[in-house]
């Protein structure tokens, strides 16, 4: 041990958690249900999110059934259609994507990747999941209250969200929705505290910030952003709940509903939009940044090459995270806010394109001169790049205030955000599941089924959402259950809609295949090697595989290098693990 190491070990004691009791769960209940093991909580989060995500998938089928073949399914009334739209959007954005990236991947990867035994506050972490679970239950219950769930659109804009002209507006639907969001946010705050503090305090010796895998950088930054952005949704939800239940007028101006004067007066609907998008825009990056981080690691590992421009990648993540708080009003160019804000928000929005483009270049340049293994995680990563670049570029249309004017509130917007924050992050989630499944279960997912899943999902989603932009260009507004009899919409648009619906059904069925694969591979999957992808990061270097509670056995890892030592010239293998001290000068022992 050299002198520096001795000093370091004195100053920085290993992150032993005092209460080792925790790591020996006694009963089934404490081990699997009220578990405080971040890895189990991660599975609970992901499983719940997948279950509610399946509901969202079915809702999207029903919507596409209505849009592609209007009149074919009588039970899809207009009310039902709006309810499907709303709940589908809400589930996908909040209860699926946010929960999977932060609650799922965050919980699983952060402690393992930074070399911690667990989250810093395991008990609060457990509570976080159960709050999330309760939020999901409340959302599901809203389907069964009188009047059904809210049909206000996922943006829940007042005044219509709490009026009787909107499904669930005068019933309990909107109340359940708001309560569910409030519970979700409280639960997320508990989880978010853990993710942030664990990255700050729980890192193993030698794990400096610049040695963090980009996955951790992405999830960490997204967690910080979520902690600051979700309160805006909380404020908006609480105030709307006051308006709905107690008769205050925070968002409610003087208005006449169906010929009748309501007792509201003086409130500002635009204030809700400001609060909503102050959360809503960072939310886009709360989903995107973990995807950025994870895909960087997948690309680097499966191309056996160091990530290109690691420093730029880190700076871009921080820059995007910061900038995303001053662009929110680009969702409101035609909302009737002060039109001069448009200059400011268009400029900030287009500036964000620069760090985002740098990330794209660096992903592609990581592949350049690499040794590209076309594994399923790699395929999904490539699909991510295609869909993300496509969706990001259409963002330049909508972010540029005047170009947004004819396109806003049309199907172009729907196509854009599905491509960029629906399909693209989901590609990463799928790639990541194929990548880390052996780490979680000790078995590989079936490759043949995986290939089918990949091809149908990638090609299918592109066929759904690329042509959809052109439906919007024609001028078809979003949130219309059918095209109606409009002179400016040619009949061929209906044909295109039917085609899109067929593609959507196919993509949906591919997800059933994926779920089947995940379940059956638990038993029948090929037993995984200890580090099947020959990755450098710490989660593959645990003494037990899959890692057990406490992660590291008797001794915490010590980190000697950054996470992207792939194909280092002169090294014995094409990767060097982060906790590998490497060739030691003669006469020294390993620490």
């Amino acid at each position, binding site marked *: 041990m050299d002198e520096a190491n001795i000093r370091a070990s004195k100053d920085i004691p290993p992150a032993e958690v005092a209460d080792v009791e925790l790591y020996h769960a006694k009963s089934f209940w404490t081990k699997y249900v009220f578990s405080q093991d971040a890895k189990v909580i991660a599975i609970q989060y992901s499983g719940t999110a997948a279950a509610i995500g399946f509901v969202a998938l079915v809702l999207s089928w029903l919507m596409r059934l209505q849009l592609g073949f209007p009149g074919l399914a009588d039970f899809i009334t*207009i009310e039902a259609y709006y309810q499907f739209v709303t709940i589908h959007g809400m589930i996908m954005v909040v209860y699926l994507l946010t929960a999977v990236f932060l609650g799922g991947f965050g919980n699983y990867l952060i402690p393992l990747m930074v070399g911690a035994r667990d989250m810093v506050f395991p008990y609060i972490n457990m509570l976080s999941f159960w709050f999330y679970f309760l939020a999901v239950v409340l959302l599901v219950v809203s389907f069964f209250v009188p009047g059904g769930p809210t*049909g206000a*659109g996922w943006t829940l804009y007042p005044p*219509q969200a709490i*009026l009787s*002209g909107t499904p669930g*507006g005068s019933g309990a639907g909107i109340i359940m929705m708001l309560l569910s969001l409030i519970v979700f946010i409280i639960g997320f705050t508990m989880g978010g505290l853990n993710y942030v503090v664990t990255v700050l305090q729980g890192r193993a010796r030698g794990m400096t910030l610049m040695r963090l895998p980009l996955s951790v950088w992405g999830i960490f930054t997204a967690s910080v952003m979520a902690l600051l952005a979700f309160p805006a949704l909380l404020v908006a939800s609480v105030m709307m709940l006051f308006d709905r239940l107690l008769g205050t007028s925070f968002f409610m*101006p*003087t*208005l*006449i*509903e*169906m010929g009748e*004067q309501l007792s509201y007066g*003086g409130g500002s*609907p635009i204030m809700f939009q400001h609060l909503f998008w102050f959360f809503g825009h960072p939310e886009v990056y709360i989903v995107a940044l973990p995807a950025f981080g994870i895909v960087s690691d997948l690309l680097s590992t499966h191309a056996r*090459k*160091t*990530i290109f*421009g690691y*420093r730029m990648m880190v700076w871009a993540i921080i820059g995007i995270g910061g900038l995303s708080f001053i662009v929110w009003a680009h969702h409101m160019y*035609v909302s009737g806010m002060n039109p001069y804000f*448009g200059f400011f928000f*268009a400029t900030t929005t*287009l*500036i964000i394109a*620069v760090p985002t483009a740098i990330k*794209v270049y660096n992903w*592609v340049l990581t*592949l*350049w*001169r*690499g040794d*590209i293994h*076309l594994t399923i995680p790699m395929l999904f990563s490539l699909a991510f*790049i*295609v869909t993300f*670049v*496509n969706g990001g*570029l*259409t963002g330049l249309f909508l972010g*540029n*205030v*005047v170009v947004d004017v*004819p396109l*806003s*509130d049309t199907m172009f917007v729907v196509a854009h955000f599905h491509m960029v924050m629906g399909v693209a992050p989901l590609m990463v989630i799928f790639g990541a599941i194929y990548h880390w499944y052996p780490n979680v279960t000790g078995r590989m997912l079936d490759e043949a089924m995986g290939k089918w899943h990949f091809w149908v999902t*990638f090609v299918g989603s592109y066929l759904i959402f690329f*042509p959809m932009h*052109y439906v919007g*260009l*024609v001028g078809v*507004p979003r949130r*219309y259950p*059918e095209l*109606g009899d*409009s002179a400016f919409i040619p009949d*061929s648009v209906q044909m*295109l809609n039917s085609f899109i619906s067929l593609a959507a059904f196919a993509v949906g069925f591919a997800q059933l295949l994926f779920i089947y694969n995940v379940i059956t591979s638990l038993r029948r999957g090929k037993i995984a090697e200890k580090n099947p992808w020959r990755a450098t990061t710490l989660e593959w270097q645990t003494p037990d595989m899959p890692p057990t509670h406490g992660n590291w056995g008797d001794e915490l890892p010590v980190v000697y290098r950054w996470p992207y030592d792939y*194909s280092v010239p002169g090294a014995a293998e094409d990767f060097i693990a982060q906790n590998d001290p490497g060739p030691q000068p003669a006469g020294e022992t390993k620490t």
Partner: protein
Amino acid sequence: MAIALVLVLVVVGSIVFHIFSPWWWTPIASNWGTIDATLTITFWITGAVFAAVILFLAWCVYRYRHTPGRVAAYQPENKKLEIWLTVVTGIGVAALLAPGLVVWADYVTVPDDAVEIEVVALQWQWNYRLPGADGKLGTVDNRLITFENPLGINPGDKAGLDDLVIEADALHLPIGQPVKMLLRSIDVLHDYYVPEFRAKMDMVPGTVTYFWFTPTRTGTFEVLCAELCGVGHSFMRGEVIIDTEEDFQIWRDEQETFASLSES
């Protein structure tokens, strides 16, 4: 291997679809050709970037796919290349933003000779109010709305008495005359959207929003609501008819004023 081919197909297919598909924006009927121009610029720049990035990606996948014995290059970064790419991206973004902001400045600056016309939206129909002989719109208050006074015009305000009220019927506008559309809603959010005019703006209860345009083509155009406003959203349609000056005067003379409506 197949993936490299599919990536190329994605690019080629997207471009072919863009050029040959029959789905394109409606023929313009207002002065906002500049908006279409910025859209076209955006299509060119983003299309070129999309093709370049994905084709390069496809080539990388093909050229550097794993074969026995291949070793990846070791290159943690390349400052020169990164700076160069950042600068080019910056220029591209500026080329998109600059014309956009110039046109936006036009969009928010209403010309002095624009005629004010009020659109009043409610669930789920469009009403209009045109200034009468005095050329001025009277004051309004949502609290005055009754069955007889659907727009809540203030009867105490003389300027409002001669205002023309059009309830749930088509709006006529003269060609070539700039119009400032004052947008008002008496219940929830709506959005006055005529695809051929390109311009649109939300209507927010409690405030009056606006946009302006000059009709450049006579004909009948469909008005749609573009902001979710409840179950009738997709049925909230209307017509706006662009007339010649003479036809417009004839139509205008047939309309009832607020004063005559309240008497009857």
